[in-house]
Structures are given as C-alpha cells and as structure tokens.
C-alpha cells in the first residue's frame, strides 16, 4: 500500500509545491533546477508516457487478434501498420549517413519515415477531420432548431460570423440585410397580430422606408455600418463574444486552479484511480 499509494501522493505534493513556489524564488540553484532540470525530467517522462500509450494501444489490438474477437482481421492491419512505422523509425532509414544520421532521419527528406508521414499518416489524419464538414452540414439541416430564445441567439450570431467573416459577406449590401430584417419582423408581426392586413401594411411601410433611404443615399454597400455584415460580425466577435468567452475563461481558470491545488494538497487523488 505504501509504495502504491502514499509515495505517489507524496511525489505530487513535493513536485507540485516546488514548481508552484519556484515561481517566487530567486536563487540561482533552485531556479536552475526548477527551470531546466525539473522540466527536462517532465519532458522525458512525457515521452515515456507517449511510448506507454502507443504500446498499450498495440497490446489491445494484439489481444483482439489472439482471442479472435469480432473484427480481429482489421486489428491485424493495425498491428502491421505499427510494425511498418517501427521499421521506418528504428531499422530502415532509406538514405545514407551522409544525408541524414540516425535521429535526424525522422525529419529529413527522402527517408522512409518521411515518406510514411507524407503519404500515409498525413492524408489520413487530415481526412478524418474533414469528414466533419459533411456532418456539420447535415446537422445544420436536421438538428439546429430555433427552439427557444437562447438557441435563436446562438444561431443568429453563428450565422453572422459565418457569412460576415468570409469574402462573400463583404459583397452583401447592408440594404439587402435591411430588407431581410423588415421581412423577418413582418413574419413576427403576423404571428402575434394574426392579421394579414396589419402585416401587409407593416411590410409595405418598412420596404418603402428602406427604399427611400437607399435612393437618397445612393445605395452604398457598407452603409449604414450597423447593417453591414462584416461590421456586425467584427462587433460581435470583439465585444459580446469576448465578454462571454471571458466569463468562461475565468471559470475554467478558477476550476483548473482549484483542481491543481487539490492535487498538491492530496485532496484529489483520481490520478491513482481513486
């Protein structure tokens, strides 16, 4: 129990307080240890963690093959892929020492490792992500509903950002947006008054007001600014959005601060599986 439980908790407390209070200590030896060696150890252990993760994954795949679990044929492919990557990483360089020595081979052009990166790893990881573009499209069609005021606010600000930020947003005239707003308000008026006449009068007055305004000012694309998509977009992005994002950021910051302190004090021990 002592080795499995107390020691890790002690390590967290010790290393945690050294790094935390190290921020305030201005003594060359301490500073050097915290700034350089302790971080180096961290980096070394982070690499071991990466290796551990990779081996764990492959262990699971091999188990799948050995016990012939459903879909094990595909796991064979995963294992083969792993072996290929290891061969490229440790055994076959593909170029002479004069071009790239061991160690530099993972970045140099012409090596087997680089080939694997360019034509196997890279296209697949990029494609996996780009699949999402399609799902976004179908979800925006079938799931993004104006259920309540909050969702409306979300979708409207999302749409303004989406259109206002790309070049096409700059081509859309602010007068067009004004017409859209008049029509939108018309639908709203109709849904409360339930009277076609009122709606008609409202829309007619609105449309003519906008038209008169347009004729007088000569239809400038980006005037008045509060109806020009790139300007509205910029405003939302830089002010209300930042206010919301900042509230979340402070919340997250406090949450992480609290969790870190709890780790250091040994109150929170989930990392050892408790």
């Amino acid at each position: 129990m002592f080795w499995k439980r107390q020691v890790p908790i002690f390590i967290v407390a010790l290393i945690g307080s050294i790094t935390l209070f190290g921020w305030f200590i201005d003594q060359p030896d301490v500073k050097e240890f915290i700034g350089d060696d302790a971080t180096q150890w961290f980096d070394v252990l982070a690499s071991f963690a990466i290796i551990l993760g990779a081996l764990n994954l492959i262990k699971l795949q091999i188990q799948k093959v050995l016990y012939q679990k459903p879909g094990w044929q595909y796991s064979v492919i995963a294992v083969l892929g792993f072996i290929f990557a290891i061969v490229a990483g440790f055994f076959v360089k593909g170029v002479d020492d004069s071009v790239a020595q061991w160690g530099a081979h993972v970045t140099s052009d012409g090596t087997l490792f680089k080939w694997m990166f360019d034509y196997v790893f890279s296209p697949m990881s990029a494609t996996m992500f780009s699949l999402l573009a399609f799902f976004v499209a179908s979800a925006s069609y079938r799931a993004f509903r104006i259920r309540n005021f909050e969702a409306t606010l979300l979708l409207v600000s999302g749409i303004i950002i989406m259109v206002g930020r790309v070049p096409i947003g700059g081509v859309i005239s602010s007068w067009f947006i004004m017409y859209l707003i008049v029509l939108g308000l018309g639908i709203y008026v109709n849904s409360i008054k339930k009277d076609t006449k009122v709606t008609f009068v409202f829309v007619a007055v609105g449309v003519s007001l906008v038209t008169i305004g347009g004729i007088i000012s000569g239809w400038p694309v980006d005037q008045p600014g509060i109806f020009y998509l790139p300007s509205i977009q910029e405003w939302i992005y830089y002010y209300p959005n930042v206010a919301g994002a900042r509230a979340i950021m402070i919340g997250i910051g406090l949450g992480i601060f609290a969790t870190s302190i709890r780790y250091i004090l040994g109150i929170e021990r989930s990392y050892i599986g408790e």
Partner: protein
Amino acid sequence: MVIFAFAIYWLLGHPYFVTDRIVMLFSILSLSATLIYYTRAAERGEEFYLRPIPALKAVEEAVGRSTEMGRPILYVPGIQDMDQVETVAGVVVLGHVAKMTARYETSLNVPVSRSIVMKAARESCRDAYTVEGRPDMFNEDMVHYLTDDQFAYAAGVNGIMVREKPAACMYMGKFYAESLILAETGNSIGAIQIAGTASQAQIPFFVTACDYTLIGEEFFAASAYLSQKPELIGGVKGQDMIKLAVIAVMVISTILMVLYESTGFGFNISEYLTIR
C-alpha cells in the same frame, strides 16, 4: 501562521524572493485558504445550498416519458477514459439516472468506449439498483463496451439509436467531434435529448440540437450535487466564493481606474494586476 512567518521573512529583507510577484503569492495563498476552508466546513457536516439545475429536473421527466412510451433510455458517458474529470462527472450522473430507471422500471442502455469506464459505470449502476431495492432488474449487459475508436464508437451508438429508438438520449462526459453526429441522430429519431459537457467547442452543437444542456461548470456542480460528497460540494461553494471575490475585484478596479484616469485621484491599479 503563514502570514506571520512570511512577515518575519519579509522584515529580514526577503532574500531570494521575486518581489514583483508578491500580489500573485498572496492571491494563491488566500484563494487556497478559501478552498480549504469550505472543503473542511463541508466535511464537518455544514450544509450548503446549491441551486436546482433545470436540466436535472428534465432528466426525471425524460425517464417518465420513456416509461410511458415503453422505450429505453440511452446514456452516453463520453469517449474519454476515467482520467478526465468530465467522464467521472458523467458516471456520477449515470448513477442518479440509474436510480430513476430502477424506480420507473425503464430499461437503460449505456454503450461505453473505454474498458475502465465500463467497470466504473457498471459499479455505479449496480449500486443504484441495489439502493432502490431492485437488484433483480440490474444486468451487466446494460453497460456494454463498443470500441475505443472515436468514429467507430459514434457509428455504433448511432446504430443503437436507429434500431432501438430510445425515448431519451443523454450525453454526459467529454466529447469531441462526435457530439454532432450523436446529437443529430438523436434529433432525427425524435428523442428527448439532454447533454452535459465542459468541452467548449462542442457546447454549441449540444445547445442547438438538444433540449437541455448542462454548460461547463454547471455540469460539474450537478455531479457534486448528485454525489452528495462533502468535498465536492465544499469545492463548488469555495469556487463560488472565489468567483464573488473576482467580481468584487473587477468592480473595484474599474472604479479605481475611472477615478484615476478621469480625476487623477487614487492610483493606477492595472500596474498591480500586471505580474511579470
């Protein structure tokens, strides 16, 4: 004690101390003290009020509706392992949901993507059914492992949704891109959907596609609230107090800034807030 010791050290000429960061040291010490104080208070048995969270009420409604319709409930605890706080919170909420399904005799379906999560989720369901006096209704297969891979898992859950047509779908945990795929399918089968996550990039998708969403900290507070563990409730309370302090500092510094820049009265607080 700490302050006293520090005062002596300070008077001795504070060797080896980064004086520029003194504001930071005091914030760290005082905030930690607040956290510890409320955690201790909760452990001593002091009760703290936590406001009701609408999405949790909706869970009960959803379970009721599933019972009426005779359809199961689908619960997705995210795609990450137990080392993520959100997954832990998800499993805590699962225990709560399992109690309700035991009470209403509705069937529960929990597909998971990590083997450790499977173990934890099974335990928490078993406990819930035992507490409600219905251990007979619990079977291990209600929590089952699909696959580790993100999209394959999403596809598997989609398959379950389309075939079993659950009346309610709940997504509580750490989500990445699959949030969208799940919420969309759930929407297309007309299920009541309730989500909870702290992944900032995924919240918008849940908000638009689900009926209720627990946003970020709300989700953690909900799990503290449901688990009734004193250290978690104390933590929520402590963080609340810190939040109040942050707001207070914000208001006071703003007033000071307005005074300083408009009338030259007072001092420039922003210098104290800049810590190099």
